[in-house]
């Protein structure tokens, strides 16, 4: 979230698209309803009419996987009708920059495409710079190659007729949403977007969000109260785990994971340190070396020295051009190339796409460790349906883990609020916290390395590994402090060279802000974003529970800690005009007094941009300091483009010759079958989690929740049910080219067929929370037997949300 949960109440129009907020984020919905009380319009765009739709002003059904077409049409509508926040677009985005003449887009392909590798060379996706390295700009936005004009040209094709035909949304509905949301382009109006897995679970997942980012920039909705792009992230601490690098391609704090060819620290820093010569750009990522070196110091401690490049060579490196997502891992398993596997709090036999392949892959492992609070389909795969335990050689260890309420630590919500959570009860039996389990395993590994040696001993033995309390248990406070960072030595910092004032920092003191981190090894910091979660005296700000709200905007600055630096709304300087006056005087998120900013913690102390000498652009994390309408960082192009899902009802993409995302990689094992526009699988299917169950379903062991939502179901429109002769509550079989599952048919008016390219396309939906282990009734199993293992090329988030199935009586 660029904003935070409470801030949703400040919005004038909330577009819930790619999310089922009421069902999956019930608390978030409280604030959405507050906005509604204030008169905000709440719009739900979703293939299904859900509990969210029931509480919105209106629901607009949309065919799964066509969000970019929908949003592309909105971009066109906003531009054509001049609904943009003009000053914002001119000065706070790259609209005025001139796109390189080498950049091109033809029939679904951007320049630089390598069809064989299914990959783009991005060297033509650039904007022009002058001799001083400062971007060339045309503030009239009339230059035909300026970003604004290029954007207009790109989305010219997204006409109402075309968008309606692709998405299955009526033109009336399209216009209704476009006008309603477009109205937030007014300076004193805020529109926000709430998304979740409904946008990320696509082969175009990242671009779904990019398309919305463009809209938000055009309407001046970024950095303001009630605006932003808000990922509603899940209860499993998704925000915290991504901040702390649960993904293979990042290090904590979203630092880059190095790859093989980047074999020295200097190469690494050279590659990832952002450069800008523009004096008006804060270019915050110029500080990259400080964060990277402090991270290395946190990992290797005293063993990290300038001489050994702070242990950079000990960091694991990705093979160049290779990906390591869970889909890649299970592909490797299935190919017999993986020996062992840790399933930490995960249940991939249910949750990963193409479960049939995943389970076959598990059979080929030598060993597997599952750390979980319950047995699940992954740890019990060897006795699963169709599996003969006698033929399985995999040794499975199930380690009982403590549940989240049985351990102390921090939990990050989507609004980046990192809240300290205390232990409510002791874990039962032999269960241990994840920290203790990790600690014990690593202790033993290190002992064995000391005794027997092994591959890469430096990594193991040089690790800073002193996170235990006096009793030898995992000490979460020690880990948290290391994540925040501390001074490795006494450090005197000159704060004002003219007055000669200095600041004395003592060795061992916690670093109060990432601005204090250094690249010379004098500071350690496990995750620069979290720097400031402790003050210099070691007081844990995550424990703050102050209920004061001085701005009246719901920022609650004294409640917990929000990264970065307790900033509640990021890019908040964009809420003010060039003079530093708030665009919406009723919501003074920030205001420049002439000397300083008052309100939220500003995105930097610099004066507003009217001060051409010291003023800085508001989007400080970007090298050019402005929001990217033209976004060259993406894998599949600088402008989001509509591509069909890997499996869809159409044989061709109505928008271009490229049916699917050109940058998507498709797995090629014998179990990775695809059936596009196949009469045998005529219905679009989407999957989701229901309120009552948690992810892959450990809540299935909770009798009350199982009572409330007892078994797997497929939601089918009454029209399709009539066509298939199905009655409500009847048992059915749902099949895709990859597998089939049984469940109960839920016949409902909440599902509606779509008219797509002149054809009627039916859509069905199934929850992803069930598996064979329990409840045992009827042998129902994971819906992921049906889903294809394919994902967004930027994140490898699998395409759970759009694939093709058939439905028949069981």
């Amino acid at each position, binding site marked *: 979230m660029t904003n935070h949960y409470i801030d949703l109440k400040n919005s004038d129009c909330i577009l819930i698209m790619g999310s089922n907020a009421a069902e999956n984020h*019930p608390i978030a919905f409280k604030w959405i309803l507050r906005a509604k009380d204030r008169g905000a319009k709440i719009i739900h765009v979703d293939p299904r*009419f859900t509990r969210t739709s029931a509480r919105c002003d209106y629901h607009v059904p949309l065919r799964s996987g066509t969000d970019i077409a929908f949003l592309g049409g909105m971009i066109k509508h906003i531009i054509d009708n001049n609904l943009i926040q003009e000053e914002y677009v001119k000065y706070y985005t790259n609209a005025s920059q001139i796109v390189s003449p080498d950049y091109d887009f033809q029939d679904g392909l951007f320049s630089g495409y390598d069809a064989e590798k299914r990959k783009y060379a991005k060297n033509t996706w650039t904007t022009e710079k002058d001799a001083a390295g400062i971007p060339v700009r045309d503030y009239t936005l009339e230059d035909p190659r300026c970003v604004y004009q290029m954007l207009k040209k790109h989305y010219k094709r997204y006409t109402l007729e075309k968008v309606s035909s692709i998405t299955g949304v009526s033109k009336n509905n399209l216009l209704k949403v476009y006008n309603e949301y477009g109205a937030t382009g007014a300076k004193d109006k805020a529109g926000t977007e709430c998304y979740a897995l409904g946008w990320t679970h696509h082969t175009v997942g990242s671009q779904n969000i990019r398309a919305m980012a463009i809209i938000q920039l055009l309407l001046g909705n970024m950095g303001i109260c009630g605006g932003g792009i808000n990922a509603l992230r899940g209860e499993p601490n998704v925000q915290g785990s991504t901040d702390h690098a649960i993904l293979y391609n990042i290090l904590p704090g979203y630092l880059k994971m190095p790859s093989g060819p980047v074999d020295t620290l200097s190469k690494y820093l050279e590659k990832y340190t952002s450069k800008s010569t523009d004096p008006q750009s804060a270019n915050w990522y110029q500080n990259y070396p400080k964060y990277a070196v402090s991270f290395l110091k946190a990992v290797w401690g005293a063993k990290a020295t300038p001489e050994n490049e702070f242990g950079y060579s000990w960091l694991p490196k990705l093979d160049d051009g290779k990906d390591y997502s869970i889909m890649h891992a299970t592909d490797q398993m299935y190919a017999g190339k993986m020996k062992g596997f840790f399933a930490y709090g995960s249940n991939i036999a249910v949750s990963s796409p193409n479960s049939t392949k995943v389970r076959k892959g598990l059979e080929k492992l030598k060993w597997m460790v599952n750390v979980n609070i319950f047995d699940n389909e992954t740890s019990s795969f060897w006795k699963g349906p169709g599996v003969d335990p006698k033929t399985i050689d995999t040794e499975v260890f199930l380690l009982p883990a403590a549940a989240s309420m049985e351990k102390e630590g921090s939990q990050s919500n989507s609004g980046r609020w990192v809240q300290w959570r205390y232990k409510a009860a002791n874990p039962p039996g032999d269960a241990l916290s994840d920290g203790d389990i990790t600690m014990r395993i690593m202790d033993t590994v290190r002992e064995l390395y000391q005794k027997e040696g092994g591959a890469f001993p430096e990594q193991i033995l040089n690790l800073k590994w002193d996170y235990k309390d006096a009793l030898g248990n995992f000490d979460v406070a020690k880990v948290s402090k290391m994540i925040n960072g501390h001074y490795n030595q006494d450090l005197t910092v000159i704060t004002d060279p003219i007055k000669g004032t200095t600041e004395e920092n003592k060795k061992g003191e916690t670093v109060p802000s990432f601005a204090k981190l250094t690249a010379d090894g004098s500071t350690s910091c496990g995750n620069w974003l979290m720097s400031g979660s402790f003050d210099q005296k070691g007081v844990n700000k995550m424990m703050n529970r102050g209920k004061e709200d001085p701005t009246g905007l719901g920022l609650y600055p004294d409640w917990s800690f929000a990264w970065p630096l307790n900033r509640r709304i990021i890019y908040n300087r964009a809420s003010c005009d060039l003079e530093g006056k708030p665009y919406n005087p009723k919501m003074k998120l920030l205001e420049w007094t002439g000397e300083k900013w008052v309100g939220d913690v500003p995105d930097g102390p610099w004066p507003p941009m009217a001060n051409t000498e010291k003023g800085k652009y508001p989007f400080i994390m970007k090298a050019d300091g402005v929001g990217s309408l033209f976004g060259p960082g993406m894998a599949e192009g600088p402008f989001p483009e509509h591509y069909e899902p890997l499996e869809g009802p159409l044989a061709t993409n109505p928008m271009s010759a490229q049916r699917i995302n050109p940058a998507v990689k498709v797995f090629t094992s014998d179990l990775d079958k695809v059936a596009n526009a196949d009469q045998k699988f005529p219905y679009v299917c989407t999957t989701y989690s*229901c*309120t*009552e169950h948690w992810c892959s379903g450990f809540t299935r062991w909770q*009798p009350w929740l199982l009572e409330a939502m007892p078994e797997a179901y497929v939601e089918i429109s009454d029209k399709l049910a009539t066509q298939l002769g199905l009655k409500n509550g009847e048992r059915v079989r749902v099949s895709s080219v990859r597998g089939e599952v049984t469940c109960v048919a839920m016949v409902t*008016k909440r599902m509606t067929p779509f008219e797509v390219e002149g054809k009627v396309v039916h859509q069905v939906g199934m929850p992803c929370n069930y598996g064979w282990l329990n409840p045992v009734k009827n042998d129902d199993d994971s819906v992921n037997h049906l889903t294809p293992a394919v994902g967004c090329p930027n994140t490898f988030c699998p395409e759970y949300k759009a694939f093709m199935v058939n439905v028949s009586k069981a």
Partner: protein
Amino acid sequence: MKQELIKLIDLSRCTACRGCQIACKQWNELPARQTENFGSYQNPPDLQWNTWTMIRFQEREDQNGILQWLFRKDGCMHCSDAACIKVCPTEALYHTEFGSVSMHEHKCIGCKACIPACPFGVPKFNAATNKISKCDLCYTRLQANQLPACVLSCPTGALTIGEKDVMLKKAYKRVKELGGDASVYGDKFLDGTHVVYVLPEKPEVYDNLPTDPKMPLTIIVWKDVLKPAGLLVAGSVVAGAFLHYITHGPKTPEEETTSEGGKLS
């Protein structure tokens, strides 16, 4: 009597997350039972002895053909003129100081009279304990100045509880905001219930919700007519008999000692 309380259920804010349904079970230690999906999100299918409150799900198209998915938290209405209390033979069901209807479990004899009495179908029989089971508005929590479990769990503010007057004012204000067919449900019948709904649609639209709940006529006949009549009539008979005795005297048999049969007439 302490301050009368009203639990307000604002259905326009309910997202059917069913937090209340589960929280109720947790606090009141009500077990789950095996259910099956019968083609609805609703489960258990109805209130049960182990389910004191539940969300009813109902799909409906309004007069403009616009799809609605109505959610209604069902449960005890805590009537002032409570039929269950009226029929309870042992005074097991009673009004608390908050106006809610609670139950002395040890007094319940499992006679089930309250089951058909309730206009809302709330009391349920637990065969294992041979007792009636129903919501008591978390009486012990109220006594300890705590919110009822359902109210505490509600994420959206659909459930609130407070002083009667304040809550009714709030309900009417909300109905005014909502406009259209919205109405307050609960204050106008059974001498006012201690659970009051803000209904966004007309009451008749909702499944299992009586439009005009009343004390059943049968109970009035039974408890207000026949019950006193039982004593009254019997008393009259006794009095009448006495009167008869002193006015007419007994019908004494004729003196006859012969063992011969009488003549044919």
